[in-house]
């Protein structure tokens, strides 16, 4: 589930770049990075449990 969200955010970032929409691409990149860090945290929390 989290992996799908992560992939979608990366896909969104690529599509913004492809459409030369650079201002939205920056936000999309931030979202993608945030999703990746969230995944890291989720993985750590699930390992702890």
């Amino acid at each position, binding site marked *: 589930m989290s992996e799908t969200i*992560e*992939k979608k955010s*990366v*896909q969104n*970032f*690529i599509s913004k770049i492809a459409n030369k929409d650079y201002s939205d691409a920056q936000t999309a990149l931030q979202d*993608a*990075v945030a999703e*990746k*860090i969230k995944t*890291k*945290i989720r993985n*750590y*929390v699930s390992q702890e449990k």
Partner: protein
Amino acid sequence: MDFKQILKEQFKDLITEETLTAVHEAFEQAVNDKAEQRAELQVEAAVTKIDEDHTAKLQSLVESIDADHTAKLQKLVETIDFDHAQKLKKVLTKIDEEHTSKLQQVIEKYETTLNEEAESFRSRLVDEISNYMDLYLEKVVPTEQVNEAVENIRSRKVLEQIRQLVGINEEFVDSEVKEALLDGKNTIDSLKKELNEALEANTKLNHELNKVEATMLLESKTKELPEAAKSYVGNLLKGKSPEYIQENYQYVVEMFEKEISEQEETAKEGVKQRIVEAVDRPFTEELHEEISSPAPVTAPSVGGYLNEMKKLDGSRLRLKH
């Protein structure tokens, strides 16, 4: 009845057989010729008539045939045209349908190929960029750091919960406790202020005391010393603490003695040199004058010391500690 027979009966005894035959032949010839002429004329007329009749008939026949044929051809052409048009339409429709279906197939095939390829390319691109971002994030924000941050946040939450349970949090402190705490804080503050003032006064008094003690100690130690030594020692140890004076007094006096002895040696060397020069020269008064004149003053304390030496009428200094 035959013409020859008629002539024979009429002219039986008058003409011979030969003449009869000749007349008969001539008559026959003439009749035949005439008949032929008339027959020819009649034939010509009949032929002309027939020709005209036939011409008119033929004309009408040709016209009727022509009209009939024209109509028939017209019909035939129309029929053929219609038939060909129908056939062409059918062929066109069929070709159109065939080409349309083929084009449709080609479009479907290429669309399928394009979509599949685009899909695979997109997924590959997303995977590769995602992997690169993972690697970069691992480099910039290591997993250990993230784990540590999570642990910190978790610990902070636990600590906050413990605080709430124990009641250290200000929200759980009631007004009386708060008032008592404020009162206590004020008392502590005022006491701290008084203590600071007392400490300040104490420090000041100690400082003054130290100053007085140091002055007294310095005076008691240097009262036996000559003025130059007193001034030298006073300059160096003035304003210092009694302990410092106690520790360093002897060293300063020794330093002064060493300096004086060095200057004395220098002065002796100078006097000896002048005496040697004076022996070689005829005039001795100048030498006496030079000897009686004071030595070059390097420092005010040293000059003062040399004056003291003159007063004591000796070249050696006796120091009492």
